[in-house]
C-alpha cells in the first residue's frame, strides 16, 4: 500500500494506481473529458490537472496518467488549478458551445460567456473514439487526420471506414455524443438502375459506413454487430469471434 495525501486528506491506495483513481476512491471529484476507465489514459483534455508535491518539488500534472507514490501530496483545487481548468473549459465552450457536457462543465465552473469567437464544432477531439477502436476493438478503422488546429477525426482519406465492424463502441464512448448510428432493415444499392437488396444493415454516419448484419455462426440468424461495451466496462478482453456470434448465442 502507498500512503499519500490528497487535498490534505491522508489516503492509502494500491501500487500502480493513478492519482485520479485514488481521488475517486475517496470521493474527491476531479473533472475529466478524455478519460475512460476501461482504456489507457490519453491525457488529451488536460482538465484533470492537479498539483503534485514530491521530494519538495511541486509541479502540475494530469491526474489521469500520473501514478501515486509514497509520501506524495496532491492538491486538486488550488487557485492556479481552478484557473487553468476554467480556461480550458472556456476554450472548449467556444469551440463546441452546443455540446451538452461542455455546457454543463461551464455552468459548474460559473463560466457564463466565453470571450472568444464562437464556433460550432460537434466534436471536441477528445480522441476516445479513435482510442477505443484501436486499443480495445483492434479494428483501427477510424483515425485522426491532419495536425495542429486543423486536426479532425475521420475515416481514412475522409471516405468510408472500410475496417469498421459497426460495433458502436465509438458511439458509446463519445462524451460529446456526436457520433450517430442507426440500424436499417433494408440496405439497397442503386448503382445499376436496378436496386439490389442487401438486407439489414447498420449505419454510422460520421465514418460513412454501412455494415451489413451477419449470420450468427451458431444459430444462423441475422444479427446486428453486438455491443462490446459490457466487456469494456468490466475491463475484460473481447472473446474470440465475438463479432461472429449473436448476442443470444454468446
Amino acid at each position, binding site marked *: 500500500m502507498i500512503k499519500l495525501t490528497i487535498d490534505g486528506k491522508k489516503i492509502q491506495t494500491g501500487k500502480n494506481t493513478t492519482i485520479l483513481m485514488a481521488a475517486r476512491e475517496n470521493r474527491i471529484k476531479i473533472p475529466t*473529458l478524455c478519460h475512460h476507465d476501461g482504456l489507457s*489514459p490519453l*491525457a*488529451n*483534455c*488536460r*482538465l484533470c*490537472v492537479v498539483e503534485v508535491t514530491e521530494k519538495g518539488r511541486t509541479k*502540475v*500534472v*494530469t491526474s489521469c*496518467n*500520473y*501514478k501515486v507514490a509514497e509520501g506524495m501530496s496532491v492538491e486538486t483545487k488550488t487557485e*492556479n488549478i481552478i*484557473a*487553468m481548468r476554467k*480556461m*480550458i473549459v472556456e*476554450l*472548449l465552450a*467556444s*469551440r463546441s458551445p452546443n455540446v451538452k457536457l461542455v455546457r454543463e462543465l461551464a455552468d459548474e465552473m460559473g463560466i457564463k460567456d466565453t*470571450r*472568444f*469567437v464562437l464556433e460550432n464544432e460537434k466534436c*471536441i*477531439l477528445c*480522441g476516445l473514439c479513435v482510442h477505443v477502436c484501436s486499443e480495445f476493438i483492434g479494428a483501427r478503422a477510424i483515425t*485522426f487526420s*491532419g*495536425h*495542429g*488546429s*486543423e*486536426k479532425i477525426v475521420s475515416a481514412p482519406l475522409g471516405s468510408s471506414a472500410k475496417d469498421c465492424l459497426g460495433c458502436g463502441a465509438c458511439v458509446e464512448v463519445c462524451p460529446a455524443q456526436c457520433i450517430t448510428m442507426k440500424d436499417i432493415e433494408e440496405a439497397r444499392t442503386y448503382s445499376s438502375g436496378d436496386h439490389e437488396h442487401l438486407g439489414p444493415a447498420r449505419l454510422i454516419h460520421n465514418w460513412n459506413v454501412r455494415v451489413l448484419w451477419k449470420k450468427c455462426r451458431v444459430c444462423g440468424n441475422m444479427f446486428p454487430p453486438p455491443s462490446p461495451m459490457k466487456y469494456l466496462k468490466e475491463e475484460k478482453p473481447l472473446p474470440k469471434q465475438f463479432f461472429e456470434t449473436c448476442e443470444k448465442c454468446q
Partner: protein
Amino acid sequence: MKVKSIRDLNKLKSEGEKLLRPKNIRVQVGTTPYALSRKARDVIEKLKKELDQQNIDATVVRVGCVGICYEEPVVEVIIPGKPKVTYGSITVDKVPSLVKAISKGKAVKKYALYRTDQEEIICSGKTFSYASRVPSDYKKIPLACEFKFFQPQVRIALRNAGIINPDSIEEYVARGGYSALSKALTKMTPEKVIDVVIKADVRGRGGGGFPAGLKWKTCREAKGKEKYVLCNCSEGDPGIGMHKTLIESDPHSILEGLIIGGYAIGAMEGYIYLHYGYASGKEKLLKAIDQANEYGLLGKNILGSDFSFSIILKEGAGAYVCGESTALMATLEGRSGEPRPKYIHTAEKGLWDCPTNLNNVETWCNIPPIISRGAGWYGKIGTKSSKGTKVISLTGNVNRSCLAEVPMGTTMKEVINKLGGGIVKGTKLKAIGVGGPPAGLLPASLADLPIDFDELVKAGSLLGSGGMIVMNDKTCVVDMARFFIKFLEEESCGRCFPCREGIKRMREILDGLSAGIGKDEDIDLLQEIVDCLSEASLCDLGKSAPNVVRSTLRYFREEYKIHIQQQVCPSKRCTM
C-alpha cells in the same frame, strides 16, 4: 581497409595529412546552400579550368562552411610552405587574377580576408604550422586572429568546418578525428566515459540545456537489453541554418560522438533523425556512415574491441513538433509525430519502449574533443553554469549574417557587433530572438546579457537552438508575436486541448490587434491563456508556445497598448 588498432588509425591519419597538406597547391571552396546560391559551383569550374590552362599542379576541394556567409563564395588557397589565405566574395571574373597570383606563389591582397600561419588542432591540442616564415607580401594580410569575425570565437563543434573535405574520412582523422573513440574504447570503461561527460558538465544544445552526462547515466542504468542513442537533426526552427553547417561541413564528428555515446550507454544502434527534404545533408551523412562502416569504425568489433555499433539515418516528414523527443521517437517508429506524456522517462522507455538517449547534433559534436582532452580543459571555457561554447546563427537586420561559435558568457551585444557588424545602417536595435519560436523576444536593453542557459531563462527567454534573429526598429513586436504564434498553430500536433485551442485563440486576438480592432481586455485575456498553456499543455511545444506572448507583454506592453488604444502600429508593419 579495416582500422583495427591505433596503428591502423595512424596510417589513416598520415593519408589524411597528405590530402590536407599536399605537396601541390590545395584550393578549397565552401559549398553550403548559400554559397551555391551565390554561384560557388561556377567558381569551382572556372578555378579548375584556369588552373588547368596555366598548368598549375593544384587540387580544388569542396569544403563545408567557415561561417562567413556574407563573404560567400569563400575560397582558400594553401601553397606549401606559405600561410593559408582566405579570400571572400570570389566571383567568376575574379578567378583569373587569383589563379595568376597562385601561379607566382603570391597572394592577392585586395580579395584576401585574412591569413592563417598556424592553427590549433582542437582534438589534440597541438598546433600545425603552415609556414615557418611569412613572405613579405603575405604580411600585409591580417592574421585570422586579428580578423574581427574570429576574435570572439572558440571553435569546438565547428572545429573542422570549412577546413576539411566533409566527404573524406582521412582528412577528419588527420585533424584528430576518431582518436577520442579509440581512447574511449581502449583506455576507458563506459562508466569512465560518462564520468568525464558529467564532470565536463555539458548541457544539451537542443534547447533545454539538460546535463548530458546525467541523461547518459540514467539510460546506462536503465533496465533493458536493447538501448538506443539518437541524434536530433530536426532543425524545425524557421530561419536558422545551423545544423546544416555541422552536417555538411563535418559529418564524421556527429558519428564519432554518437558512437562514443553508444559505447558509454551500452547501445548497439544509433539513429540520426534528419529533417525532411534536406538532400545535401542526407547525402553527406550517408556517405560518412558508409565510410565509417568500410573502415570498421562502425559495425562489428569496432577498432578491434568487443564493442559493435551501427548507425541508421532516418528522414522525418516535416513537422516542427517532431523535434520534441517523444514525437521524434514516434516518427522514427514510422508513426505520426505526436508527443506522448513523458511521466516515464525516455531514458527508461523510449524508442520501441527501450531505454533511449536523445541529444542534439551540436551536443554530439562536442563529445569527441571532451573525451580527448578531458573535462578539465572543457571546464575552462564558458561560464560557471554553462560550460563550453555555443554555435550561433546570426541573421536578421544585422550587416553580416553569419554562423559562428562563441564561448558561453559572450554577450549578445558582442555577437551582434563583432560578428554581425552591427545593426543595419540608419536603424536601431529593438529586439533579439535567441532560440526560435519558443524563446520569445528580448528587448535591446538586455543586449548585454551573456549567452548562458540560466541567464536567458531568468530573463524569460531560452538559449534554445541558438538561432539569433536580430530585429531593428522597423520590426513590430505584435507582428512578430503573431508570426510565431501562427507558426506554432500550424505546427503543433493538435492533440491536447489547451495547446490546440489556446494557440488558435491567441492568434485570433493578435490578428485583431494588428488589424486595429483590438480591445483593452485583450491583454489580460492573452495573459490568462499564457498562464494556462504554460502549465497545462502536454508537451514542451504547448508549454513554451506562450513565451513569445509572455515576453513581449513583459517588455513591450506599451506597444500592445498603442495598437489597441490608438489603432496604429508604431513600426508601420501591421496593415490596419
